[in-house]
C-alpha cells in the first residue's frame, strides 16, 4: 500500500480529508478487501490512541456496535468463563469495530448550487454500507422507535435473469413509482434475481431495539 493512500486513510479517520477525496476513498474501501483490512487495523490503533483522550466516534453508533459485539455468543461465553468483568481491551475493540463500520460508510450530502430552501452543506458520517442483517445500527442510530428485525441471510443466489425477464423489468419500470422503481432496478443491477424456489425463508429472528 502506498504512502499516499495510507495518509488518506489517516486523514479520513481523523475527519480531515476533503469530501471529494472521502467519496473516492469510500468507494474504494467498499470494494478493496486489502484496503478494508488495513482500515480495520488502523481503526484499532486509532481507537486505542484516542481512548486516552476520548474516542472520536459517533457515540450512539459506537455504543450500539459495542452492544452488538458484546452480545455475540462467543464473546459472552468467554466473558462468562473468565468472570473477570469487562476487560480493558473490550471497549477499545468494540469501538474499533464501530469505527470500521462507520469507515466504509461515509455519507455526504451537499449541494453544488444553492437550492430553494436551506442550503445543503454538511460532512456526514453514517452507517450506510452495512447490511441490516449484519449490523442493526442504521435504524437504531436514527432513533426510529419501531423495532428492527434481522432477517436470516439466505444462501447467495447467482441466477442471472433471462433476457426476457430483463425486458419485462425494464418495460415495467416505466410505470413504477419512483421509490419502488429504484428498488426494482437496483435489485436488477445487482443481479440477484432467482427462482422462487430459492426465495429466502422469511422467518426473521430477534428484534433489536
Amino acid at each position, binding site marked *: 500500500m502506498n504512502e499516499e493512500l495510507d495518509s488518506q486513510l489517516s486523514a479520513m479517520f481523523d475527519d480531515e480529508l476533503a469530501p471529494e477525496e472521502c467519496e473516492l476513498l469510500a468507494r474504494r474501501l467498499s470494494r478493496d478487501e486489502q484496503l478494508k483490512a488495513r482500515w480495520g487495523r488502523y481503526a484499532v490503533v486509532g481507537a486505542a490512541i484516542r481512548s486516552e483522550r476520548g474516542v472520536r466516534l459517533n457515540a450512539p453508533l459506537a455504543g450500539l456496535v459495542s452492544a452488538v459485539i458484546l452480545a455475540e455468543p462467543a464473546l459472552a461465553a468467554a466473558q462468562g468463563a473468565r468472570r473477570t468483568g469487562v476487560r480493558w481491551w473490550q471497549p477499545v475493540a468494540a469501538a474499533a469495530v464501530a469505527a470500521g463500520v462507520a469507515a466504509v460508510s461515509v455519507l455526504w450530502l*451537499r449541494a453544488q448550487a444553492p437550492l430553494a430552501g436551506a442550503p445543503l452543506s454538511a460532512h456526514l458520517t453514517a452507517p450506510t454500507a452495512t447490511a*441490516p442483517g449484519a449490523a442493526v445500527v442504521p435504524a437504531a442510530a436514527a432513533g*426510529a422507535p419501531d423495532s428492527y428485525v434481522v432477517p436470516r441471510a439466505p444462501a447467495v443466489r447467482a441466477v442471472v435473469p433471462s433476457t*426476457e425477464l430483463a425486458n419485462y423489468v425494464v*418495460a415495467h419500470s416505466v410505470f413504477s413509482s*419512483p421509490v419502488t422503481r429504484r*428498488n426494482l432496478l*437496483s435489485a436488477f443491477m445487482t443481479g440477484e434475481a432467482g427462482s422462487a424456489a430459492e426465495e429466502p425463508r422469511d422467518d426473521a429472528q430477534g428484534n433489536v431495539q
Partner: protein
Amino acid sequence: MRRAMSSSERLVALTLAWAVAGAALADERTPAQKMAHESAPAQWLERMNQALTTRNYDGTFSHWHGGRVEMLRIIHRVQDGTVSERLASLDGSGREFIRSGASLTCYLPDQRTVLVEQRPPDESLVGFPALNDQTASFYDIREVSHTRLNRRNTHVITVSPKDEYRYGYRLWIDDSTAMPLKTQLCDTRGHVIEQIVFASLTLSAHIPDSAFKPEVSTAGFKWLRNESAPPALAAATQAWNAMRLPPGFRIAARSAQTLPGSADPVDHLVFTDGLASVSVFVEPQRREQADQPVPESATVGSSSAFSTVIDGHKITAVGEVPPDTVRFIANQLKAQEPPPVGSRRP
C-alpha cells in the same frame, strides 16, 4: 328564571360547539381529505416523489437484500423536459441502466447483451402512480418520528399495508430537499426485506451529458432493440382483462408494444393501487416456448414475477408486490371479444 351565561361560560360553550362541529366535519371528510389532514405523511410522500423525479442528483447508495449488500450509483437529470438517468452497479455485475428521454438502455455485461427499448415518445416517463382515496384505504401512512439521520433532519414515514397483497415502506425523508436518504421495504409482517441507504448525494444545478455515458465496454456484445413500431392497439384481435383484482388495484395503463429482440407484439397492462404497480405482459405462446415449464416464478430483489399460459398466450406479471399478488393477477387474465367497431377501449 334563566340565568344569563357568564362570559367564561359562553367561551366554554363556543369551544364545545366548535369541537362538535369539527368532529362532525371530520366524519364527513373523504379518505383523501382525511389523508391530507393527517397530513403531512402523505404530503411527504408526494414531495418525495416530486423530488426524485424533478431534481438533478448524483448519489451513491448501498442496496441490501437477502443478506447481500452492493453499492450503486444513480445520476438523475431533468433538462429541457427530458429525463436522463443512469444507474450502475459499482460492485458486482457491472450492469448499467441508462435512460435518455424515451430510450431505455440496459447493459448486461454478464450476458454480453445490451437491451435498447424505445418507448413511445408521447408516453410520460414520470407517469408513476399517484396517491388517491383508495391508497389511504389500503395503507396506513404515518409519520412516526422526526429524527436526525446522518446529521440531517428527516421525517420517518411508515407506509403499512392493511392486507397481504402489498409491501410496506419506511422512509427517512430529508426535511430540506424531500429526498429519501434511507428506504426500507417491509413485508406484510413488517420485516425489512430490502434497504437502500445513500452514502453520498449531490444535488446539482447542472449535470453534464458525459455523466450519462456507460462505462461498460460493449465490444462483442449482442444488441437487442425494439426499433420496429409497435402495432396500433386497435389492431389487436383480443382484449385482455383481469376478471378480478386484489382490493384497491385498478388498471392504470394499457399499451401494445414490441420488446427488444422480439418481433411479436405484446399487450402490456398496468395495474396499481397508487403505490405498488404490477405489469402484465400478454403474448402469443411461441412454439419454442412450449417446452418451458409453466407456471414459472422468479424474483428480482423483493419484486416478483410469475408466468403462466392461458388460452395459448403466455401471461407474465411483474411487480413490486408479494409473489402471491402477481400470481393472483396473472391467473385472472382472460381474453375477451374485440369491442364493436367504433367503440373505444379503456
